[in-house]
């Protein structure tokens, strides 16, 4: 039981009258790769963004190693949402990789990776740069440290973004459709890096449309639709033998219905 790293319990999110997330609950075990799949608008990205409170939930709780994310106890025993300032230390324990990378274009690759370590005062500048180089090595881009992001391909930019998240020494990393904005021929290099992280035992939640990747690399899969979890379980089981009709229909649409998967003998 104590290998549970993250608990999401009763998570709700509404924009005005529109309920985007309706009572989402799941656990992430330490070292696990959990994939969130589902059609556009199913709430999976919103769900992911609630974990580090970039999106403020309307209800429910996020607990990382016993610590409530984004909530602080007030004097009268109740709780309130933290400010962005109060959230900073908690967010630094959670890496995030965005669909559109969001590297900072005015900083070199090295500075992109080292900025947080320097500014949060975790280490000296020299140590931060040393760590940055090591993390760039992990994504095989150490030789690009002095370049500016705009000089890199999309795949390389996303790998730098992964290095930036790794430099936080995070307890888990959230991936928000990390390959959706990439040219098809660049998807592989990014997935390759994510696969290496999975093999090293990094805890990750991955919102993705790469169903085959979710199946092959992910430990578990959650299929979401309409703001609820429709089905969850071991990755291969959910994707190869979905129990629910909605899961089957979705997988069929994206070309992964069990019947369409042809395996070489």
């Amino acid at each position, binding site marked *: 039981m104590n290998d549970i790293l993250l608990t999401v319990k009763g998570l709700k999110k509404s924009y005005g009258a529109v309920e985007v997330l309706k009572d989402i609950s799941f656990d992430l075990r330490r070292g696990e790769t959990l994939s969130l799949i589902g059609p556009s608008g199913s709430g999976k990205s919103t769900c992911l963004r609630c974990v580090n409170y970039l999106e403020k939930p309307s209800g429910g709780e996020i607990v990382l190693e016993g610590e409530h994310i984004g909530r602080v106890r007030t004097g009268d025993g109740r709780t309130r949402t933290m400010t962005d300032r109060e*959230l*900073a*230390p908690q*967010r630094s324990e959670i890496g995030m990789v965005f669909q559109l990378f969001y590297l*900072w274009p005015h900083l070199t690759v090295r500075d992109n990776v080292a900025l947080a370590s320097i500014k949060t005062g975790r280490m000296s500048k020299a140590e931060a740069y040393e760590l940055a180089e090591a993390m760039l090595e992990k994504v095989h881009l150490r030789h690009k440290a002095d370049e500016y992001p705009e000089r890199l391909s999309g795949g390389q930019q996303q790998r730098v973004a992964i290095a930036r998240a790794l430099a936080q020494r995070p307890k888990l990393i959230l991936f928000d459709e990390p390959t959706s904005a990439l040219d098809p021929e660049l998807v592989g290099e990014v997935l390759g890096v994510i696969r290496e992280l999975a093999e090293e035992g990094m805890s990750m939640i991955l919102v993705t449309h790469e169903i085959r990747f979710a199946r092959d690399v992910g430990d578990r899969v959650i299929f979401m639709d309409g703001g609820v979890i429709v089905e969850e379980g071991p990755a291969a089981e959910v994707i190869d033998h979905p129990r629910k009709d909605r899961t089957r229909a979705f997988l069929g649409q994206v070309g992964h219905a069990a019947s369409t998967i042809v395996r070489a003998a």
Partner: protein
Amino acid sequence: MMLDALPSILTALLAGAVTAAQVAFGAALIAFGLGLALALVNVFTSVAVLRLAIAAYIEWMRNVPALAHLFLLYFGLASVGVRFSPKAAAIIGLGLVGAAVLCDVFSAGMRALHVGQREAALAVGLTPMQALRCVVLPQMLRLTLPSIGNYASQLIKDTSIASAIAAPEIMFYARSLVTSTFQTPLIYASAIALYASIVFPVSWMFNRLERRLGVGR
């Protein structure tokens, strides 16, 4: 014969140029500081009344000639007992007008940045203030540098209206020299040359800075 007067004309005009530079520099400081502060409130506040007040300020400053503001500050306030020197009134007046211009420029610059830039900064654990300093402002300034440059050269030229409240700047000296020496073409030509020799290097400097920072790349 006519050119004999040139040294004394230039000496007087140069004294005016010093005042003009002081007015421009002081006004630029106010415009930049106040403009940035207003823009930050404008972009990040959730209080609608504040945004409305800032919008009203900008409209007011833009729709009334700067000269009218200078008259109000210098003559208007004097009549209720608040006395500024002509130079101080010019600095404050042009500064307040400039703050409206730069507030607009900076607000647009920050809105042009993708919200993900700031989100990424918050996600790695920076505080909102650090995100602003390290990620939002540097990019915003780079993005708005051409507009800031335009504003700067406009401001230097606009110091000439301070002559109307008797701030001893270039046009003030030029006019008084004309009335005492009647060397009209020579004096105004010298004044024009002097303005050009100040504004041109400033524009050139901004252009260079834009190229070095790769603005628009």
